[in-house]
Every structure is written in structure tokens, then in C-alpha cells.
């Protein structure tokens, strides 16, 4: 009798909680729908009004001109340049550092360096940006000339900022490689270095690539730090030592005071950024599927 009672009650609870869990699971779907909806609904009319080609490929961004001109091509290029620079600087160093941490680092030192990497990941971008502003900008001015706010400065800063992402994920991927690969190689008479590079790292390939892609995503999406060091001139890139404006910077700088079509154009910039990120995510999930 009692048993049956327990069963009935627990059956009801089971069902109820399943529903609760299900509703929770739907929240993220709803969120994405809302985000898409609001960004696109507010962005598309403006893009349509400006004209898709004019908007995407237009080389002139002068919202306060009469008539205003809303071409974001310079910003698209800006984002791409800065990201490419960050990859060139960050990826080799990041991956090699990950290898160092996973396979070369003495244990005592590791206990110190690993938290350091975590710290690096945790440092807010505003702090990086501030550091760039007070250290890198003057430094770049001295070395490369110009006013210091430049593609190089931004690339370098972003390169540093994506290091922890690449290092942590790559290191995890390398560590996840079964020790047996390494032992198998060493047992064949290969050296530690040879075994690491030719047996262990290839086995972690997909994890490392995934880390790089994530790093790229982070670089494209980074806002505050770039704003503080890139100069933010809304013009076609004029050289590595010259300033530039990225898509993210465009939004954050002008959103505060923009209205009407200008505001729509900024949201449209967000749409473009959003699409970029979707593309990168798509690539990421393809890589991840390969990995499995």
C-alpha cells in the first residue's frame, strides 16, 4: 500500500521535473531567436535603405555628412587585418607554449605557469586595453613612427589576448593524447622532442585547430581593447602603422549618440559582425565533428 503511494508520488515528481528541465532547455533557443530577431529587425531596414552593396562595399563612412554615407567596407577590412595580425602573432607562440606546458615544463614551474595562463585568460579586456593604451601605443610610436594607434599595435594586443584561449585548449588537447602514443614512439628509439612533435602533436591536431578557430572568434569579437589602441579612423586601411577602425569599434564608439538611419547602420554593422561569427562557428563545428 505504502509502496504504491511512494511510487505514485515519485512518478508525478519525475514527470514534473522533466517538464521543468525541458522548459529550461528552451530558454537558450528563445534567447537566440530574440537576439536574431531584434538585431535583424532593427538592422535590415537600414541596410535596405542604404543598399546592401553600398553598405557592405562602400568605402566611405560619414554619418554626419549631408547626405550621410554609410559604407562599412573599411571596418570589415579593419577587423580582418587586425585579426590576421593577431593570428600571425598569437597562433605559433600559443601552440608552441602549449606544447611547452604539456611536454617540456618542469613540474614545479608548471604549478606556477598554469595558474598564470588561467590568470591571463581571466584578465578583463579593459585591462589589456588600458595596458595597450599606456604601454604599447607609445612604444609603437617610438619604433614605427606615426601616433602609435595602428594596425600593428592592435594586432599585437589581440595576439596576446588570444594566447590564453589557444594555450589552454591546445594544452588540454595535447594532454588528452593518450600517453601510449608518446611511449610507443619513445620505445621505438625516438627522442623526447621527436616523439612530441611527430607522434603527440599530430594526434592533438583537431583540438589545436579548434583552439585556433576559437581564438579567431575572440579576436574578431573583441571590442574595448581594440577601441583603445586602434585609432578608430573610419577609413580604408592606409598602412600597418596607421590607425584603423573595426566593426566592433564602430558600434561601441557611435552607438551612444546615433539616431535614426545612423543608428540602424550601426545595428547593421552588428548584423555583419553576427554573420561573421556564425561563419566562424560553422567552421568550428565542422572541425569538431571531424574530431569525433
Amino acid at each position, binding site marked *: 500500500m505504502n509502496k504504491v503511494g511512494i511510487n505514485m508520488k515519485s512518478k508525478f515528481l519525475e514527470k514534473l521535473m*522533466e517538464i521543468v528541465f525541458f522548459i529550461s532547455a528552451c530558454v*537558450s533557443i528563445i534567447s537566440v531567436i530574440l537576439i536574431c530577431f531584434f538585431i535583424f529587425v532593427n538592422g535590415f531596414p537600414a541596410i535596405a535603405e542604404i543598399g546592401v552593396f553600398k553598405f557592405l562595399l562602400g568605402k566611405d563612412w560619414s554619418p554626419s555628412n549631408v547626405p550621410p554615407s554609410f559604407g562599412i567596407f573599411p571596418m570589415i577590412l579593419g577587423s580582418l587585418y587586425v585579426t590576421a595580425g593577431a593570428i600571425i602573432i598569437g597562433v605559433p607562440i600559443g601552440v608552441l607554449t602549449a606544447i611547452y606546458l604539456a611536454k*617540456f615544463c618542469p613540474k614545479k614551474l608548471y604549478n606556477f605557469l598554469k595558474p598564470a595562463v588561467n590568470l591571463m585568460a581571466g584578465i578583463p579586456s579593459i585591462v589589456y586595453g588600458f595596458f595597450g593604451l599606456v604601454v604599447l601605443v607609445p612604444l609603437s610610436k617610438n619604433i614605427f613612427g606615426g601616433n602609435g594607434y595602428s594596425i600593428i599595435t592592435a594586432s599585437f594586443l589581440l595576439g596576446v589576448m588570444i594566447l590564453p584561449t589557444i594555450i589552454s585548449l591546445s594544452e588540454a588537447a595535447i594532454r588528452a593524447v593518450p600517453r601510449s602514443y608518446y611511449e610507443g614512439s619513445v620505445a621505438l628509439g625516438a627522442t623526447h622532442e621527436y616523439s612530441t612533435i611527430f607522434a603527440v602533436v599530430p594526434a592533438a591536431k583537431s583540438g589545436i585547430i579548434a583552439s585556433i578557430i576559437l581564438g579567431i*572568434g575572440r579576436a574578431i569579437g573583441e571590442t574595448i581593447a581594440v577601441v*583603445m589602441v586602434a585609432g578608430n579612423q573610419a577609413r580604408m586601411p592606409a598602412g600597418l602603422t596607421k590607425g584603423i577602425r573595426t566593426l566592433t569599434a564602430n558600434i561601441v564608439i557611435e552607438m551612444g549618440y546615433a539616431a535614426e538611419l545612423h543608428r540602424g547602420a550601426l545595428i547593421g554593422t552588428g548584423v555583419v559582425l553576427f554573420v561573421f561569427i556564425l561563419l566562424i562557428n560553422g567552421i568550428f563545428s565542422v572541425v569538431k565533428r571531424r574530431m569525433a
Partner: protein
Amino acid sequence: MNRLSRLSRLSRLIRYTIKFSAIITFGVLFFIIVYILVRGIPYLKPSLFALEYTTENVSLLPAIITTIIMTVLALLISAPIGIFTGFYLVEYARSGNKLVEIIRITTETLSGIPSIVYGLFGLLFFVTALGWSFSIIAGAFTLAIMILPLIIRSTEEALLTVPNLLREASYGLGAGKLRTIFRIVLPSAMPGILAGIILSIGRIVGETAALIYTAGTVAKIPENLFASGRTLAIHMYVLSSEGLYTNQAYATAVVLLIVVIGINALSTTISKKLTKGNIDG
């Protein structure tokens, strides 16, 4: 003889390259930290911690309090939803299920969206559409959505590391799903989930772009949830972009760094403490 030296020459080259990279990475990191500490610590004056913000003292305290409120609020919204979603994905959904696919895609999408886009969305939805104007609550909801994928992901991963053997054992004893989840799976997954939550805190504390146009930049302790307020990160952004308070910005950077270091330390101790005893699984 020759072969041997080829192998060892190659090995040496590899070793040097790797060490060189590591030196660069950690050199830069330590330079940043040391530089900021050296420049910032001298300006950590008591006046920075005054209850009231004025343009004279540029007090941090209101920002700190706002940050704490913001963190708690965002977590209160996000953590249960995220953890429950994890439960649903791992314990209930069958792998062929379309819904699961969709949820996976959406969480991945959410986690890739740049914070400035969250900021835009918050501005359009919470601030404008819902009419909450620049407010703590608008900021918190924006952040909650932003950290949701992090919590879902870490919950999911933590649940997945709980060996199926344990679930089977529980079902095999005639236990139902709920009991299995709460008595067997959750305790084992707790460290992973907590680690995810702590990471989220880190993100909230450091976030700028998503908050500028949702929570606003008012430098007072907010009176209620619908009042505007600035977190530490925004505070620093404002200080540094105004260009007048560089020294105070250094000091704020120190505080932020200390908070981040504290959070990191906390997360490692917690996960260590919780993993002790159930090493294997």
C-alpha cells in the same frame, strides 16, 4: 653516427623553438602584471574606497558594490536555467532528438556572439523594447544570457564525465531518473559545474562592452534594480577614456586583477576540494 646526430640536431632545434615561445608568452604576461601592479599600487588610497563617488575622489566602492549585485543577479537567473538545461540535454534527451540538436546549435551560437552584440541586443530589447532603460536589471539579464552557454556547456561536460556505469548501477537497483540524477550524477558533476559558475563570475566582472549600453555608466550605488550603475570594468573604461584619471585607472586595474586572481584561486581550491575522494569514476 651521422643519423644519430641528425636526430639529435633536429631535437635540439625543436626544443629551443618551443622554449623561446614559452619565454615570450610568459614574459609578456608578467610584464603586463608587474607593470600594472607597480604603477597602480601606489594609488590605492583610502579615498578610492569612499562610499560616495565624486569627481574628486573617483571612488571605486560604488562600482565594486554594483559589480557584486550584478554578479549575483546574473547568476541567480542563469545558473538554474543553465544547470537544468544541462540535465535535460544529458539525462533526458535522446540523441536522435531534433530539439537537442537545436539546443546544441543555439548554445554554440550564443557562446560565439561577441559581447558588443549582446550589448546591442540588451539595448534593443531590455532597455528599449521592455522599457527598462539603462538599469542594473537590464545589464544582469543581458549578462545572464551571455553566460548561459558557459554554464550549460560546463554542466553538460561535467555530467558527461560521470561514467554511465554509475547511472546504470543506479537504474539497475531500481532507482528512478530523478533519484539517479540528484543522488548519483549531480554530486559527481558538482566540481565541474562549480568551475563553470566561477568562470562565469570572471566574465561578468570583466565585461564592458555588453554593459555600456544596458546598465549605463552612472557612478553611484544603485538604489534599486531599475537604476543605472557601473561595474568596475566600466568604471575603468570611463576613467581611461576620459584621460584625466590615469593613475586612478591604474589603481582600478589593480583591483580588477586582484579580483580575477582571487576568483581563479577560488575555482582551483573548490575543484580540488570537491574532486578529492572521488578521483576515478
